[in-house]
């Protein structure tokens, strides 16, 4: 019963319980949306988007006098605006798109840090924004995460076959006369909402890991989109739980512990995946 005690002990604290629920929820959501991020090669976009919301959150933080609850809305608004803005940059422009994203993302991130640094106690608050504060999640924000998360998953399900086609073969999508631009923008908005929902769990700096790592792990183990999404979600949920226990018992920052657990799963799959594992693969001649 020692193991059971070990497992149950942290749950006597309601902040731990809420933290676990938040980590699982955000993990599942990020992993399912992240499947498309991986398949469409949007990892850099996801990373940039997460960093770009910092000034929005900072502005909300300063205007609200440090209140935490409204920050979600500030994050959501900035995130949606930034995703469509970055999406527009990547469609047309004179500068290469990764360069353009890099400029916008670093500039916005710096603006966020500058804003937060005007407050005296900024180091602690900044670290919560950057690396998450999953143990500080309230019941209210947990409910909000659930509502928005389910909304995103619902849209993902409703447009499953359309998202599949625009990701696999955009030219086919055009010859089938699908509304490609609208669907692409919808996808950007879903990623944006996901980033806002998950922000409190891992923070903006580690967000890209939540989007990309479990999905990439799943891509090594499955051969169909739906099973890739499901497996990614399961891996992310398990990473969230293990990460929080590790964080509790070893005193490691929670966001970092979750991301490290997900990374460990990736390494295991990378080495031992049944078909593609590095260990069984013959070196290419």
């Amino acid at each position, binding site marked *: 019963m020692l193991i059971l005690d070990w497992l149950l002990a942290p749950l006597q604290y309601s902040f731990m319980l809420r933290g676990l629920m938040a980590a699982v929820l955000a993990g599942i959501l990020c992993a399912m949306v992240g499947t498309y991020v991986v*398949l469409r090669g949007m990892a850099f976009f996801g990373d940039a988007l997460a960093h770009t919301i910092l000034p929005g959150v900072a502005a909300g933080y300063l205007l609200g006098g440090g209140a935490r609850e409204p920050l979600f809305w500030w994050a959501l608004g900035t995130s949606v605006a930034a995703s469509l803005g970055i999406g527009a940059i990547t469609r047309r422009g004179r500068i290469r798109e990764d360069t353009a994203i890099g400029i916008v993302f670093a500039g916005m991130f710096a603006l966020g840090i500058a804003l937060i640094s005007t407050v005296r106690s900024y180091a602690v608050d900044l670290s919560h924004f950057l690396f998450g504060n999953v143990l500080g999640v309230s019941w209210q924000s947990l409910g909000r995460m659930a509502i928005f998360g389910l909304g995103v998953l619902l849209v993902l399900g*409703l447009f499953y076959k359309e998202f599949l086609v625009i990701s696999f073969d955009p030219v086919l999508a055009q010859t089938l006369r699908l509304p490609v631009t609208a669907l692409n923008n919808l996808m950007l908005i879903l990623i944006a909402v996901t980033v806002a929902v998950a922000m409190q769990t891992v923070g903006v700096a580690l967000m890209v890991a939540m989007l990309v790592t479990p999905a990439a792990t799943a891509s090594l183990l499955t051969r*169909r989109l739906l099973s890739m999404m499901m497996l990614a979600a399961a891996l992310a949920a398990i990473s969230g739980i293990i990460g929080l226990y590790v964080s509790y018992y070893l005193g490691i920052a929670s966001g970092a512990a979750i991301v490290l657990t997900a990374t460990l799963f990736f390494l295991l799959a990378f080495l031992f995946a049944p078909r593609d594992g590095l260990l069984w693969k013959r070196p290419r001649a």
Partner: protein
Amino acid sequence: MPPHVPHLPDQPILNVAHVFLRYDRHTALEDITFHLHSGERVAVVGPNGAGKSTLFKIVAGVLPPSEGEVTVYGSGPGGHVCIGYLPQRSQVDWRFPVTVADVVMMGRIAKLGLFRWPRKQDWDLVFSALETVGLANLAKRQIGELSGGQQQRMFIARALAQEAELMLMDEPLTGLDTPAQESLLALLEHLQQRGVTVMVATHDLEQARLHFDRILLLNRRLIAFGPPEQVLQADKLVRAYGGHLTLTEGHMITDSCCEGDEYVDS
């Protein structure tokens, strides 16, 4: 839901009139005019950068021309879901987590409409398309496990599932071994029997001569369009290819140029 505009019976399946495509300072296509009859097989031949892929994208209604007009059965291509565009194999992410049947089912999406899942009749269509191209036993494979010829036939099955009446194939024979090329050419003949109109971009002039009703010789301008014996004449070929060509007794053997990379904008 699908924007499938009506087909006017007295109009050609494809009419291209004075089409130009200009990029900043570069003219990719210049004053292209021709039309196709329903059910014919046309090879589009020309050197790299001749604008073959660009022409196909304009015909498919994916790329708007700078000038000129394309009509399919009497109306612009943008309203039609009867045009199947088969990508070059090098443009496809073969690691994508989909099976052969999944890819073929993508052809059904326009007819299915939003918020609907495939019904039994859609799966029946998908499997009969896979039978037609001889891939029924590989339906559940991940697409990266197919050979080059099988990959190409999968895309033909997808166009069949789409119920395409005009199929545009961008370099389908490139990089295939001889048996795979032959099985693909046999499949093209079968498509013709079904009344499907086929446009194929190819580098192989000998295959174009043997297996196609008409040849469209292209190098930014339309050099010639007609039956093989009229088009494959030394003067016309020199105008299209310049020096990159091996001629033997007035008959041409092959375009000695490299394969792959057309001038395509993204």
